[in-house]
């Protein structure tokens, strides 16, 4: 491979920047910093002004509605979509989508995408010299059930390199796209795996400066979800921001 990495900062540089930012952070910053210089791509793409408080109105109060006409149940199993068995560690990820008051988000769309077991995406701009798996697209969709529950059967993704700095590797993750009951609850995030040695080194994961909040991005291994001679189970629950219905229906707080 061509070495074009002279200009890139080292992991040591990036890690030192992360530590300095964390040391200076206030407790309780539970969402990522938009301006997080160790993630170099954020430098020109972060808004510099504080977001403006607004009262949600009209279309902001109503999430788009999806139904069984939109999503085939087979889309929740990423191991059966491409005419053969994908390579890698078969896994199940199951959890619930709830709003800020703990209420289930029912019948709502969940979309995921991920690299294959070798850390390679089905995407023309992924240049990682790792094999594409002809039996794995890494794309999934489902609707949550009446309890807000979702489940995907998939293959555990591999870590992959990127060009943020020299010898930069993303911890294994699955991208999740979520809707709530209000459009203002829209969320795209990433789910990680417990105990990943790359956590401390990764500026995207570390852009959430509050340690407890960061932990919320990590699924738990759940042996009760594992299946005999078949797959390993992970549990990952997702909490969206408060819905505006909270403010319209204060009686909900009484019980």
């Amino acid at each position, binding site marked *: 491979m061509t070495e074009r990495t002279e200009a890139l900062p080292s992991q040591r540089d990036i890690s030192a920047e992360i530590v300095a930012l964390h040391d200076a952070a206030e407790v*309780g910053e*539970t*969402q990522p910093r*938009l301006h*997080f210089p160790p993630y170099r791509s954020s*430098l*020109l*793409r*972060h*808004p510099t*002004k504080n*977001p*403006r*408080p*607004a*009262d949600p*109105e*009209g*279309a*902001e109060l109503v*999430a*788009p*509605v*999806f*139904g069984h*006409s*939109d*999503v085939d149940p087979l889309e929740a199993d990423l191991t059966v979509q491409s005419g053969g068995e994908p390579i890698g560690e078969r896994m199940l990820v199951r959890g619930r989508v709830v709003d*800020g*008051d*703990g209420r289930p988000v029912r019948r709502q*769309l969940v*979309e*995921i*995408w991920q*690299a294959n077991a070798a850390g390679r*995406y*089905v*995407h023309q*701009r992924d240049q990682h010299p790792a094999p594409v798996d002809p039996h794995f*697209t*890494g794309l999934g969709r489902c609707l949550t059930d009446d309890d807000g529950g979702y489940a995907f059967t998939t293959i555990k993704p591999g870590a992959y390199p990127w060009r943020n700095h020299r010898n930069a590797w993303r911890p294994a993750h699955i991208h999740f*796209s979520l809707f709530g009951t209000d459009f203002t609850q*829209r*969320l*795209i*995030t*990433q789910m990680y795996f417990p105990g990943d040695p790359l956590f401390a080194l990764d500026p*995207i994961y570390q*852009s*959430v400066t509050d340690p407890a*909040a960061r932990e*919320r*991005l990590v699924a738990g291994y759940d042996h009760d979800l594992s299946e005999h001679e078949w797959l390993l189970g992970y549990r990952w629950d*997702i*909490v*969206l921001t408060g*819905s*505006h219905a909270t*403010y319209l229906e204060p009686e909900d707080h009484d019980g």
Partner: protein
Amino acid sequence: MAELIATPGQTIGPFFHEALPYDHDRELVPPGGAGAIRLHGYVYDGAGAGAPDALVEIRQADAAGVVPTTEGSLCRLGAAFTGWGRGSTDRTGHYWFSTVDPGPVRPGAAAFFAVTVFARGLLNRVFTRCYLPEHEAALAADPLLAGLDPGRRAGLVARREPDGGLRFDIHLQGDAETVFLTFPGHRS
């Protein structure tokens, strides 16, 4: 009940194009039909370059001001208007939707598209509004717009084009930085 702390967002990253775009994702109504307009613009970074790896979503009322709760936003069969669309930017940072002008959701309200923006390099989604330029009285009475200085306010109002379309650029950073929004229930 105490409000739970929300799961943090993370960047959409560079590899969403096989996952999130889908057939007719940006066509809330078929292009060229009666009442169809093109809402379009660029997503710019702080250096004024178009972001080729951004995703824009809109949520809107129909022409009568009713926000649809019709399913079928992914499989756009038939004539149902679902009021939601998704458009990824091209290599120049350009996005477009085929849609209709939203109506005001109550008498006297300013009509707008609710807009969400995702991009590689943007660590969490951002929200904004794209207001229709007509109905100056409604715009003047809008609580959000009224609190903004004129330069920033102008960035939230789309420009009507000669063909009836709307031009709305999104500046993630810089002198023309778009006004992004936070709502009750959001935290830092």
